[in-house]
């Protein structure tokens, strides 16, 4: 077989593409494959495998088209994408899709992330401050409990005030604390 692109060298590389749900196989020589799909392309196989994965998971793969259309669909208000479109493309239309499909997402994410469905780790400013405050309050409360147990009431009173102050900051949205 000859390369589809340059039509000069023998085709050695097969690239599978998915377009509108249809699979296309392209046969390129190594030179053209390298230029059209360079090393740098990361996870270029993901859309395909992800699509299959999602379809299999929701068992939509073998259903006739009309049946799909008759089923009531979850739709994201913000971008207008249905959950079916998300499953077909393997991508979200916008950030609000996460909220619109919140109930269905853990099943999808679980498959992709070794059973995990919740984020742990870095969070941007306001969120990060809130999380930090919550953890601080927990820690102070623990200290407070210990202080009361050993009857160090003076220290306990101080800790109680500290906890209250942190709680009011949290109630205010956690914005007052400066980022360090």
């Amino acid at each position, binding site marked *: 077989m000859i390369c589809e692109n340059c039509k*000069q060298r023998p085709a050695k590389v097969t690239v599978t593409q998915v377009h509108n749900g249809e699979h296309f196989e392209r046969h390129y020589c190594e030179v053209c494959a390298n230029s059209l799909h360079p090393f740098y392309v*990361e996870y270029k196989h993901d859309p395909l495998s992800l699509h299959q994965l999602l379809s299999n998971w929701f068992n939509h793969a073998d259903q006739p088209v009309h049946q799909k259309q008759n089923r009531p669909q979850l739709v994201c208000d913000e971008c207008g994408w249905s959950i079916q479109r998300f499953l077909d493309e393997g991508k*979200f239309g916008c*950030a609000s899709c996460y*909220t619109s499909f919140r109930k269905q997402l853990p099943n999808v994410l679980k498959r992709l992330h070794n059973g*995990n469905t919740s984020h742990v780790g870095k969070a941007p400013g306001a*969120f990060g401050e809130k999380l930090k405050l919550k953890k601080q309050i927990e820690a102070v409360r623990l200290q407070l409990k210990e202080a009361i147990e050993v009857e160090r009431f003076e220290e306990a009173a101080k800790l109680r005030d500290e906890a209250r102050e942190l709680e009011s900051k949290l109630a205010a949205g956690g914005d007052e604390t400066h980022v360090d």
Partner: protein
Amino acid sequence: MSIERFLDNSPSSWMAGIGEHSDIVMSTRIRLARNLNGYRFPLAFTEDEAHKIDQSVSATLLDANEDLHKHFSSIQIKDLSELSRQVLVEKHLISPKLANSPMTGSVLLSDDESVSVMVNEEDHIRIQCLFPGLQIQEAYTQADAIDGLLEKELPYAFDEQFGYLTSCPTNTGTGLRASVMMHLPALTMTKQMNRIVTIISRLGMVVRGIYGEGSEALGNVYQVSNQTTLGKPEEDILADLQSITEQIIQKEREARNALLKHSSNTLEDRLYRSLGTLSYARIMTTDEAATCLSDVRLGIDIGLIKDVDVTILNECMVFMQPGFLQQYAGTTLNASERDMFRAKLLRERLQMGVTPKTKGEELT
């Protein structure tokens, strides 16, 4: 600074061949995917949204030049010729997806090309740091600094349950992809790569060869990266990659020693043949060039070939690609012309890389 600077044959900082374990780990890359609240993702957004995102991200980063101690240049993808885009792709500075996007998008490049921030690729923002050798923590620290800076000015799409919200659910959570590019000729020659790929995939990591097939990689170069982004904090993702990379380095060194011990004559013959081919061939495909460069690199690493500079090989892997060849030639080349031009470029580069120290002369 003009765009030409990024398109010529000057090496990027990651090609320097420095950094820890740089004989085996060619480069380390950190990528953070981020999106802004209030705009749809690039798959669904309008040109108007694309334009506004591009403006605010670019302005924020260009304003931050001083805080970051780095100077950035902003390049509009639409302003570039097709060939220039291809060159930036081959140099790993932008992705093919951004290069081919019909919407407004841009890339912000630091002068040393170690940082590239793509705007309106698959996500609104993709922060990428590319460092030479094994420098996972260093590259992450740099990416994190840029992330922090953008975050102060721009409203990120974030959810307490799902973390950073990304266009693709494979990036949801940390939005972090950490990867190392490794040269593993001995593990490939001794047919151990399939086994390693299988083991690593069970650890939430993924190994890819140049075409993503896993086993036979062009030039024996493999990319190892984290597969999951949810449920593990950034530090753990980085630490896991570090530990797996170190174990692969160890295995590669063992395989090299075994080859030297049991088949040193065959190995020596093969490596010198490749040096000969690179030095004298007149027609060279990408595949053959990559194989020969890999052999010569191995020859340098094991101390067999002493008079070639390893940075030249890093550069050659990039500059032998079709876009660069045509940029360098200053004209369009068909496939067979490219093969000839590639052979010429490699001959020239290799001669530049030969230091005449072997003759026993003192260099000043």
